């Protein structure tokens, strides 16, 4: 449904779904730039944090997050039902692939094996520095994170 609105043909939709499915969550590909192009998602979710690329969590994770917005990591992030449904469809349509071992879906991108692998060279002092504060703050180092660009060339470690 949502997929059809975004991709003109079923073939393209399938390619999109497969691409999304095999990307970062598995850590097998090297995609660094993501399309985050749903206006409702941007408007509602990117006020308090960047619009995290939907590809970075599996469908099961997005579903769990969207059903727990009343206590969203300690804050009230509730939405009206219509908006919530639209955003959830978008996130699920572009979600990454779940882990094959059937482990519980992570609620934070920073809990995924892919994230930990990508960030294993980041010193622990960087994570706790006042300029970073939290792994939720992608834009502290990924200067173009708000545009979905996590490429090395836009990477700046804060002092």
């Amino acid at each position, binding site marked *: 449904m949502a997929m059809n609105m975004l991709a003109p043909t079923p073939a393209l939709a399938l390619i999109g779904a497969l691409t999304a499915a095999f990307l970062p969550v598995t850590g097998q590909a090297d995609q660094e730039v993501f399309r985050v192009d749903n206006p409702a998602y941007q408007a509602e979710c990117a006020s308090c944090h960047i619009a995290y690329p939907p590809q970075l969590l599996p469908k099961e994770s997005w579903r769990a997050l969207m059903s727990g917005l009343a206590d969203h990591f300690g804050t009230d992030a509730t939405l009206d039902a219509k908006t919530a449904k639209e955003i959830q469809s978008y996130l699920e349509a572009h979600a990454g692939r779940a882990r094959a071992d059937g482990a519980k879906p992570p609620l934070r991108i920073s809990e995924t094996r892919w994230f930990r692998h990508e960030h294993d060279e980041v010193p622990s002092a960087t994570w706790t520095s006042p300029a970073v*504060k939290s792994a939720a703050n992608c834009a502290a180092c990924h200067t173009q994170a708000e545009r979905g660009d996590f490429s090395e060339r836009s990477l700046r470690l804060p002092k």
Partner: protein
Amino acid sequence: MKLPLFLLSGPLAGLAFVLALPAMAETPTDFLRAFEQEARKADPAFQGFSAERGRQFFRQPHGNDWSCASCHTDNPAGSGKHAKTAKVIAPLAPAANPERFASAAKVEKWFRRNCNDVLGRTCTAQEKGDVLAWLTTIRK
């Protein structure tokens, strides 16, 4: 019952126009007026809003970890920063950011969520009016 399309299109267009109007027309003054009506209903002895009370309400914690100022800072004419994610938050004072207090849906949503985070309950019309009264006194 089936009606010819031309009979429906007139009223529908009119309805769409009326529905679209409030979204365009809302200003901080409209919200102050609405909060005042609501406050008067809740308390017939309502004495009006106080910018000073709003300023204090904004800066003080109310039992939970955060105050309004934890994210919006003590100076709502400037940018704020989310207390948890460090994401930059656009200024809250309408003089510094014309998008603030311009949409009923947004005003409802943010007071609902943020009052719950800061106070653990909904804000009263008196509290919302006091804060807005203060915010509208702030110049860029």
